[in-house]
Every structure is written in structure tokens, then in C-alpha cells.
């Protein structure tokens, strides 16, 4: 099945889940999730705490294996073709305690650029591009631990963008940002990354406003199942119930 999907990578959905379930011991977190995300769109993933949103992102980013079912990114099976999937995906985890606190912002991102295959010169050039894209104007040579919460959050997003991935998996990327910066990120996602660069974004958020402002489609996960799919401007009955 993986080979067939690989051949059709250019026309296939950017993200495809077929009956994906995930259990941790006896606790079933995802229950038979089917999902297709078209290339160049932004899909919001909402749901209460523990609904399975982060688990779904971690399966797509290859950090977790599904218990059953299959998940594909541009036709590549996340379980059997993890190397290819990693080259297509940029993952922005929730929170920013995923850096080396005593290294500078630049050193941190240069390290992750090298892990993504950049040479020193190319990595620094890409870093400049990403900082420009995010509007980062703080001192990039300051230790990561000394940066503001907003700057740290932008660096997490910046790291996901480093390898110029086709698919972005974002777990609450604006959680710690002030309203103005939040709007800047929304514009970046909507206008620059999706409309301009044709990226595909799966955005986990707890903010209905963010989902409605930014997303083409909103999916509500409830108790490990997809409970509702709406257009960005439609109401979110499940969450409001």
C-alpha cells in the first residue's frame, strides 16, 4: 500500500489517516480516525484536553506509532517510511521547553538546521530568512533561557520552518503570545505559508476564534473520534454544547 501511495505523492492528500487508533495500555486515545487534508490548506484541530489532538500530531510527526490503521504524509507511511516523512514535516510541539537553555537562540537553531542537513553557511542564511519571516528582532545571540515567552514561542515555530517543510504540524503555536503577535502569526500562517508558499498546516488550538480566523476547515476531536467537521466560519456545536 505504501508504494502505491508513494507513486501518487503529488496528487494525494497531504495528510491521510485511515482508521487510525492509538492506545496506551488499556487507555484508547484515538478510535478509528479517518481524515484527509488537501495540500495547501489549513485545518484546525480542536477538542478538549485529552481528546487525542497531540497524539494525532505525534503520529504524523513519526514520534508515535499507531496501534492500528495507517497514516500517510504526501503518500509516505509514517510507520514504515519515517525518514521520508521527516523530510516533509515540520513539527512545532506545545510549549517551548524543547531547546538548550544555555545556548543562544541562534546556536539552538543552527544546531537544528544542521540536523536538517544544512551546512553552516546555508543554515545561517536559512536562519535569517526564518527570522525575517517571523519578524524576530530580538537579540539572537542571547541565551535561549533569557528570551521572552513570545520570542521562545516564535523560535519553536521557527525551528519547524527551518527545513522549509511541505506540511506543518503546529500544536498551539500562539498559546503564549499577546493578541497582536497572535494576529501576526495568523497572518503568517494564512497569507504567507498557506496562500503564498502552498504549505499544508494542521493546527491544534483551543481557541475557537483562532480556528475560525485562520482555518479552511475545523475538525473537532471528542474522546478520540472526529465529532464534527465544519468550515472555518461555521459554528462549532460540539465545543459549545
Amino acid at each position: 500500500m505504501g508504494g502505491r501511495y508513494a507513486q501518487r505523492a503529488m496528487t494525494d492528500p497531504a495528510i491521510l489517516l485511515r482508521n487510525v487508533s492509538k492506545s496506551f495500555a488499556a487507555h484508547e486515545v484515538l478510535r478509528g480516525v479517518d481524515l484527509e487534508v488537501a495540500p495547501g490548506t489549513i485545518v484546525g484541530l480542536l477538542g478538549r484536553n485529552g481528546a487525542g489532538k497531540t497524539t494525532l500530531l505525534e503520529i504524523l510527526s513519526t514520534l508515535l506509532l499507531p496501534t492500528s490503521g495507517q497514516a500517510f504524509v504526501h503518500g509516505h507511511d509514517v510507520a514504515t517510511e519515517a525518514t521520508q516523512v521527516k523530510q516533509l514535516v515540520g513539527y512545532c510541539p506545545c510549549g517551548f521547553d524543547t531547546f538548550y537553555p544555555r545556548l543562544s537562540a541562534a546556536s539552538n537553531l543552527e544546531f537544528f538546521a544542521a540536523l536538517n542537513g544544512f551546512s553552516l553557511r546555508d543554515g545561517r542564511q536559512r536562519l535569517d530568512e526564518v527570522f525575517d519571516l517571523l519578524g524576530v528582532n530580538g537579540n539572537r545571540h542571547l541565551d535561549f533561557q533569557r528570551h521572552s515567552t513570545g520570542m521562545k514561542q516564535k523560535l519553536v515555530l521557527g525551528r519547524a520552518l527551518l527545513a522549509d517543510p511541505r506540511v506543518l504540524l503546529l500544536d498551539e503555536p500562539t498559546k503564549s503570545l499577546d493578541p497582536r503577535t497572535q494576529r501576526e502569526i495568523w497572518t503568517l500562517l494564512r497569507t504567507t505559508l498557506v496562500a503564498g508558499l502552498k504549505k499544508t498546516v494542521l493546527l491544534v488550538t483551543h481557541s475557537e476564534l483562532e480556528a475560525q480566523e485562520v482555518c479552511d476547515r475545523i475538525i473537532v476531536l471528542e474522546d478520540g473520534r472526529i465529532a464534527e467537521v465544519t468550515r472555518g466560519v461555521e459554528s462549532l456545536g460540539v465545543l459549545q454544547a
Partner: protein
Amino acid sequence: MAWKAWAFFKRDLLVDLSYKLSFALEAVHILIAIAAFFFLSRLLDARTLQGYDSFAFVLVGLAVNAYMTTCLICFTQVVRDSQVSGTLKAVLVTPTSPRQFLAFSSLYPLSRAAVDAAVYGAGGLAFGLSLARVNPVPAILLFVGSMLAFSSIGMISATFIVMFKRGDPLLWLFGSGSWLLGGVMYPTDVLPQWLRPLAEFLPITHALRGLRAALLADASLGTVVTELGVLALFAAVGLPASVAIFEFGLRRARMTGTLGHQ
């Protein structure tokens, strides 16, 4: 690939440099240990230590035990620190394979272990150790061979950390067994007859036997070929096995969802 390896080395160097005092404290710690064993060696009879000067005998034992300990714990430390800092997941979502992560993360600690071994040598010189009978080629080959052999055990113990987070019995068993039976502080022939065969299953026994001969008795490559062969065998079997075991552990953690658990 080389740039990626350098990126790991540079990361660890920069983090280490941010704790400037640790370098100085480690050197002082080594020098104090050398001084203590220098004075203790005055009480020992050189004839009981396989014909080597007792201070030189113990100094080589301490140096090898120190870098063996680094080889054993650096992999578990890398994994544990990455789990606690949250960087393990961030690294593993990049196109960096688990074996690259493990191998490249060990470069800096192993380099520091080599520097520490050199500090032991320099400290020994200050206390009158003679380098007149050093044969560098077999010494370097034995040093590299023993590092690879010790590292294979270290990588297996890193799998315990991935799977169980703490409580690595292998590290404890191997470290304690090597200290007790490997001939670090005394020759293995002072052990009871029934314990001596056990010592032969430990790479440190062969590393110490070969290195003492190459560093203190000008032994030729031919003289230490058995020790080199045993260490090469440990490495040839242990390294691929330990990488396979580590990858199995990671896959299991991806299944159980415990990859980043603290």
C-alpha cells in the same frame, strides 16, 4: 554527515563552556586522586604488581577506569538529559537517525574522556611517572579498541533509559564488576582462583593488561595482539548489537508513547 557530527560536538562544547568552573574542578579532582594514590603506593611492594612500579600500575588502572566509566554513562546521560530537557523529541523529528543521534552525541563526552586520560598522564608525570617505556602505536590502538568495546555496553544501557527511564542494572553490574575483577587497583592474579575466569569476560581486564604493557613496558604490537583481538571482538559483536537493541527500544517507546517521558 561530518557537519552533523560537528554540530553535536559543538552543541555539547558550548553547553560545557557555559559551566566554566567544571573543567577546573575536574582537573583538580583528578590531581587529588593521583596524589592520594601516589602516597598510598609508597606503602606497596612493586613486586606484587606484575613487575610494574606500583604507582604507575594504579595510575593506568585509574585512568582506564575513568574513561571506561565515561563510555558507560555518557550514552545514558545523553538520552536522559534529552528526555528531561524535552529536546529528544525535537531531535528525533528531524532526519537524524537514532544511531546518528547516539553516536554523534557521544563524540564530545568521549573526547573529554580522552582529555581526562591525558590529564592522568600529565598528573602522573608531575609525581615522577616515567614515559621512557611508552610504545605509542599499540597504546593508541588499545585505547581506541577499549573505548569502542566499553561504548557498546554504554549504548545497551541507554536502551534501559529509553524503556524504563532509570534503574539501569547493566551499568551497575558492569561498572562494579569491572572495578572489582578487572585489575584496576590490583592484579587479577590476587583474585581467588574461581573468580579469575570471570575477569576474562570483562573488556577492562584486557584493556588494562595491554595498556600497562604498552605504556609501561614498551610492549610491541605483537606482544599485545591478543588483548587487541579480544577488544576488537567485543566491539565487533557489541556495537552492532547495541545499536540494534537501542533502535528496538526506541521503536517500543514510539509504540508505548514513553519517548519523552521524564
